[in-house]
């Protein structure tokens, strides 16, 4: 780096003039600002190379594969946009994409709604040991692998699991079932696992945001005779916009791109009742050897995530007074 600095072109006349006094110092400074700035790319390059080779290149290849019919071994045939046509017209694939959107209700909406409820009631978690315990426990689902959450909940939701045990204990024997195994309940049951994973994070994020709201806002609201509900809509909701945005962004991505939980708890079954795009890409690419279709679904999934996340970012980050 020093040698590159030394060979810098000395075209720095204009900038060094106003300095006057000592001609050596400004001259040196000027040299650093021009060449060294380009040399600075050396710092960025390793990260960029890794990113380029292991993300951008595969990304371009995904788009390329998506235009071909290829079994991963033999010759590929160019089919244009046919794979995309399949993604948007095949009934099974459409159902699979819809499933991901249904999961948003459980991964995003329920945790954010419950988190808001708890946050507006609790206002803040105390700093004492009790607060630490609460925070630590609520973060557990974020720390363990999703695979473990899937295993734990498959057991909880199984026919001899805790959920059915609880139902029997209160005399609701009629409601007991194998929650992940039945057509009508499988997808919501998978969703519940997501709710469990996301609820703690959302709650803590929202409570943390809550503790930053100026209490005088609530004072003013109460003076105006606002009840808890109006207070919530007039003060809490607008003040927490940014935190809600963060929760929604994180959880919507987790729902749309879900894989681990579904793979472990149901493998997409029964039928394709709980299959999500991530799982279908895996299956198409590695079991059914339909690389082209898998890639088209991958591109669609990527765009769907962007399509959902960008408006959330705009709505919640846009103009925060």
């Amino acid at each position: 780096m020093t040698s590159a600095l030394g060979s810098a072109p000395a075209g720095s006349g204009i900038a060094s003039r106003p300095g006057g006094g000592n001609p050596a110092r400004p001259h040196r400074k000027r040299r650093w600002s021009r060449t060294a700035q380009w040399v600075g790319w050396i710092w960025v390059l390793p990260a960029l190379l890794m990113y380029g080779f292991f993300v951008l290149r595969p990304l371009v290849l995904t788009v390329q594969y998506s235009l071909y019919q290829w079994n991963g071994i033999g010759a590929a045939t160019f089919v244009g946009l046919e794979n995309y046509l399949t993604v948007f017209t095949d009934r099974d694939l459409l159902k699979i994409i819809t499933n991901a959107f249904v999961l948003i209700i459980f991964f995003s909406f329920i945790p954010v709604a419950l988190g808001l409820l708890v946050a507006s009631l609790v206002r803040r978690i105390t700093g004492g040991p009790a607060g630490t315990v609460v925070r630590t426990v609520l973060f557990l689902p974020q720390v363990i692998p999703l695979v473990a959450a899937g295993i734990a909940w498959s057991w909880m939701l199984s026919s001899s699991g805790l959920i059915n045990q609880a139902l029997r204990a209160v005399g609701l024997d009629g409601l007991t079932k194998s929650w992940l195994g039945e057509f009508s309940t499988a997808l919501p049951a998978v969703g519940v696992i997501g709710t469990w994973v996301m609820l703690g994070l959302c709650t803590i994020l929202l409570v943390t945001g809550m503790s930053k709201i100026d209490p005088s806002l609530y004072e003013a609201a109460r003076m105006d005779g606002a009840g808890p509900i109006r207070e919530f809509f007039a003060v809490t909701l607008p003040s927490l916009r940014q935190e809600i945005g963060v929760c929604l962004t994180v959880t919507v991505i987790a729902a749309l791109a879900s894989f681990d939980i579904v793979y472990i708890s149901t493998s997409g079954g029964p039928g394709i009742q709980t299959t999500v795009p991530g799982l279908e890409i895996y299956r198409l690419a590695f079991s059914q050897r339909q690389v082209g279709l898998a890639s088209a679904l991958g591109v669609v999934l990527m765009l769907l995530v962007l399509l959902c996340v960008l408006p959330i970012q705009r709505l919640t980050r846009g103009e925060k007074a």
Partner: protein
Amino acid sequence: MNLTSRSERLTGRIFLIALVVVTLLPFLSMLSAALQPRGTVPTGLAWPSDPQWSNFADAFTAANMGALLKSSMLIVAGVVPIGVLIATMAGFGLGHLRVPGGHIAFGLLLLGLTLPFEAVVTPLYYQMRDLGLLNTRWAIILPLIGLYMPFAVFWMRAHFTNVPRELSEAARVDGSNTWQLFWRVHVPLARPAIASLTILLFLWTWNQFLLAIVMVDDATKRTMAGALGAFQGQWGTDLVLLCAGSLLILTPTLIVFLIFQRQFIKALLQGSVKG
């Protein structure tokens, strides 16, 4: 605070406690199942009359825990130091040196910030096959470093953008070159940001599932999460052993989490806000 009525605060407490209980229940239910005698069909949550702690020893052998731990640690050792180092360097270049055209590089990286791994896993598989790295830990390590770069560089750049430039100019007058400047001045100052990033990358690597099952067939060469997936596949019908094994596989993460609990929560909160 005194504005919140007593009943509201009480309801809030009750909700919070309920939340804590619901979060803990799956773990307790797994523990109660793990302690039942082998070969029985456990029920949801029932403390066994005769807890079989030896089930954990069986699961330790069945899961090949020693090999799994070693494998996960090797993968973490490959991903985290290199990932953190090159992300810190890039963050320094983009946020502090402000290289010309840096916004283009940054824009490219932002593209990857919301990218689902599933969208690139297929070509990555063929790429790794062509490199002859399938079924080696490199097939997990190398792509993960690349896939973490958008977030990691974004994170470190945010730190370096806020470092006053005068700091570098003062050091330059002392005759330090950029390399010395980076190591002696900027890395020590960036320690909190680097610590959080290290924690996040460790956690994400340890828990990485998709790449592990796609790239590596041998469970003992995978990440912990990948190994857990294989363990479920193998022992899915033996619920007692499955629960014991899952809890065992979770233990290292839980211990690390409990030790660095404060830093973890800080990192995860900041991580989700910035990401």
